[in-house]
């Protein structure tokens, strides 16, 4: 079976900063995968390379077998990305935003799925509201709806629950889990390690542009005396601090 995401030797520099150092990563189709790491580790850079927002300096990245550089149209059709930044177009309503996003992906009639998304993300009563009138949490949910509007087989969520309250966070995860059960591959970055621990079958940890752990959640938890992902994460970051000392 073609992996949902296949990354071989992905390399990226920003000026003198070596943001990603020959990263290899495979996410199997249908997986629920967490990509963790401290701020500046390279998580968003890796997502940007996958989505075409940035261009790799080296290596090969594929989404559902489609090269993100040479076969970018197919790669993007197979990918839905929830960006980390809370961005929106102030000219349009929620429904217009989702219809326009559907159109970009070649979908003319997508109203049924848009209504389903609005319902599941508890946005039905805001469908005709201008994006400017929404709270931060609502804008975040519209971003999620935009990423899902073309039913991509691979969904990348870059810190999707930042600024979302607990109740909504739970309903959001139920919806994402439903999508995963229906066959969508989920790649998630989050700073809430308990979310990754509960939801994800596999976890990779990035540190200074390199993958330092890539295993099933179960194996990673077994490697820690406490059986908590947070302790695994802290231990790996302490190694980093030791390495950084002269």
């Amino acid at each position: 079976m073609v992996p949902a995401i296949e990354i071989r030797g992905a390399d990226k520099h920003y000026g003198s900063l070596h943001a990603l150092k020959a990263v290899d990563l495979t996410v199997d189709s249908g997986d629920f995968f967490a990509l963790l790491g401290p701020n500046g580790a390279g998580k968003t850079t890796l997502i940007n390379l996958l989505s075409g927002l940035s261009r790799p300096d080296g290596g090969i990245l594929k989404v559902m077998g489609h090269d993100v550089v040479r076969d970018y149209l197919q790669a993007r059709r197979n990918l839905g990305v929830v960006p980390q930044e809370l961005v929106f177009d102030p000219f349009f309503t929620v429904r217009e935003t989702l219809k326009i996003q559907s159109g970009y992906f070649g979908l003319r009639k997508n109203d049924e799925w848009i209504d389903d998304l609005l319902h599941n993300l508890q946005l039905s009563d805001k469908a005709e509201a201008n994006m400017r009138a929404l709270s931060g949490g609502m804008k975040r949910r519209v971003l999620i709806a935009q990423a899902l509007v073309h039913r991509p087989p691979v969904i990348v969520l870059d810190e999707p629950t930042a600024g979302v309250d607990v109740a909504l966070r739970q309903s959001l995860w139920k919806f994402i889990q439903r999508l995963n059960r229906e066959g969508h591959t989920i790649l998630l970055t989050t700073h809430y390690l308990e979310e990754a621990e509960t939801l994800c079958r596999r976890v990779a940890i990035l540190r200074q542009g390199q993958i330092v752990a890539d295993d099933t959640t179960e194996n990673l938890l077994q490697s820690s005396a406490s059986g908590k992902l947070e302790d695994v994460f802290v231990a790996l970051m302490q190694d980093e601090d030791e390495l950084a000392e002269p």
Partner: protein
Amino acid sequence: MHGFRTLFFKEVLRFWKVSFQTVLAPLVSTLLYLLVFAQVMADHAEIYPGVSYAAFLIPGLVMMSMLQNAFANSSSSLVQSKVTGNIVFVLLAPLSPGEFYGAYVLASMVRGVLVGLVVFLAAWAFVEIPVREPLWAVVFGLLATILSGTLGVLAGIWAEKFDQMAVWQNFVILPLTFLSGAFYTLHSLPSFWAGLSRFNPFFYAIDGFRYGFLGNGDVSPWQSLLIVGGTCFALSWTTLALLRKGWRLRT
């Protein structure tokens, strides 16, 4: 192809939602130019036999508003999207550089032509304007909005903040449109300025467009067509090459 149509439709809807600012405001300012200049210059000698100064001025003002608004549409949309970050939705979509370019330029053309048409009809209510070679007017109207819309895309992908865009508007577009013969003929300028104007593609756009109305111009419409068409081609080619590289859009 549907992605291209959607982006085009979105860009048209964007300016239409603020049509007071994007269509009516240019109409008012252009009519004020007409009112002031046509009054001040009314007693001056005819520029072409049998053509009043107001009739001479109107095609120039119409084209000037078309050029300025076509530029404003693509440039302001892109720079706003970049500053607010929502450009990401277009960049994540399966759109080719050609579709991206085409949608932004076509929407600029729609706004430019719409503003030009509204200004022309409003001026026509007050001043009799001959339309002797309408095909030339249509050709130069379309080419000029492609030219200006493309310049807007270039400026929009280059600029990362609003004051960088102001540099384009105030130091490129405004001088090019004001020093383009919108208000005067080339022959009325001192030889240095007349010579300099010959390097301004907007001068040929206005002269060719005016030829469509008056059947008279400073240079042959064929020469204008060659220069405006050639500039359009060169700018479009450059913009497409930059978009393919992801210049200033994809890090």
